[in-house]
């Protein structure tokens, strides 16, 4: 099945051109000598120098990275633990209920997720008598929440593939359950954990819509800064 017609190749090339042309245009204009995004006038790296010297942008970049690392770490740890818990649930109805709730942030439009969390934070803020309830804590909670399903869904298949008898055998041979887990199960689900963590991290870096509703003036991420 390696024969591909010329027409098919042309089509594939066309789609890639469509996907990459706008980015190529942006890249070219980033080296523009003037401030236009329409007309090229000479080559210069002035915009990059300006960018790296712009305190607000650099601060937003720093915030974005801190948020992505912290939220991905929390979501990965909690998500992995949750996957193990959900997988070992004996009550089928409870289990599918928990899975449905898990899927909610993924199925819901992002704008609804963002707004629902914002309303919760604003409501909790008024209850506690605080006017500026939105900030780092709220955006962190929001990011962890929308990352959790992705972590769970990438660990779950790996966990299902592991043979529970090996885990039991390790315990029969005198391993403490915790030690048996780290020696037997953990190495097998590690690829799922890593891909879940990477996904959580990149989702957080690029997130705009949910951040847009849950961020406060004190903590702006790069996507928020770009949009303003």
């Amino acid at each position, binding site marked *: 099945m390696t024969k591909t017609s010329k027409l098919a190749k042309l089509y594939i090339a066309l789609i890639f051109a469509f996907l990459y042309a*706008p980015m190529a245009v942006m890249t070219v204009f980033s080296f523009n000598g003037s401030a236009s995004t329409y007309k090229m006038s000479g080559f210069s790296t002035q915009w990059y120098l300006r960018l790296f010297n712009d305190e607000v942008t650099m601060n937003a970049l720093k915030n974005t990275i801190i948020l992505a690392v912290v939220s991905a770490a929390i979501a990965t740890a909690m998500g992995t633990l949750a996957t193990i818990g959900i997988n070992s649930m004996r009550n089928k109805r409870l289990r599918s209920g928990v899975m449905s709730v898990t899927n909610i942030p993924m199925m819901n439009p992002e704008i*609804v997720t963002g707004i629902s969390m914002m309303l919760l934070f604003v409501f909790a803020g008024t209850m506690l008598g605080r006017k500026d309830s939105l900030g780092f804590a709220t955006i962190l909670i929001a990011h962890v929440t929308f990352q959790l399903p992705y972590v769970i869904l990438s660990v779950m298949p790996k966990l299902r593939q592991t043979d529970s008898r090996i885990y039991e055998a390790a315990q029969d041979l005198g391993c403490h359950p915790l030690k048996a887990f780290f020696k037997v199960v953990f190495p097998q689900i590690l690829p799922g954990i890593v891909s879940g963590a990477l996904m959580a991290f990149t989702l957080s870096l690029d997130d705009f819509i949910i951040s847009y509703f849950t961020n406060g003036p004190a903590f702006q991420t790069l996507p928020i800064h770009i949009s303003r």
Partner: protein
Amino acid sequence: MKRSSLAQKIINAPYILWAALFVIAPLIMVLYYALTDSTGAFSLDSVKQIGDYGGTFILSISYGAVATLISLVIAYPFAYFLAHTKANFQRMSVMLVMLPMWMSFLIRTYSWITILGESGVINSALGKIGIGPLPLLNNGGAVILGMVYNFLPYMILPLYTIMAKMDVRLIEAAQDLGCGKLQVIRKVVFPLSVPGIASGITMVFVPCVSTFYITQKLGGGQVNLIGDVIEAQFQTANNYNLGAALSLVLMVMILICLGVLNYFTDSDDEVNGGVLV
């Protein structure tokens, strides 16, 4: 047994608590705000106002449906062709399809202004041969283009995944039994790819219907979809109650659309989204 169920409770507790606090409670808050007024008293004012936005809802669904359909039509042959190329080429191509998703969604949208604008790349090229400038930006077409461009990878990936996994022997068997090329696609490839189509549609339709950034940047205020209306309630009009009521309707509407889709395609709901990995 007793001990293991206690351990299980300890393992599950943090996540269940988190999900209750930050998934369920926020949705209850949406309901609460939708059914109260700005003073916090029970009121159906916001719910009554929903009717005024019926046209916006229909327009949003239409835009989402058109963008999704175009994505499907573009992505389907691409995924099919790609699944029949050399393995090395396939691996590289999948990377290339995923790469744009790692670039900021905002920049990807913004870059189209540079291309479509009145003195943008296309119009200045056309200007040299004496045509235009054509009004390419700030209209419905630009919004649809922005939607298709931004979410096309989400359509390609599930389709490709399912086509790459498809048993070649089934296609060969159909050919042996006298099926023509088109017949093979219609009778074998298409029915087997339905779950991929379903998750592709889900992943493109939902963000398209609820978008507000694409319409604002590429529609130039000409196209006002439900996402824009909701966003305005929270960021400028400060009418949280109406915003909550509209969000609630948007959510229910999308759930119904997905339910209908799942009913017709009968896809396994735990697989949805997992195809991305």
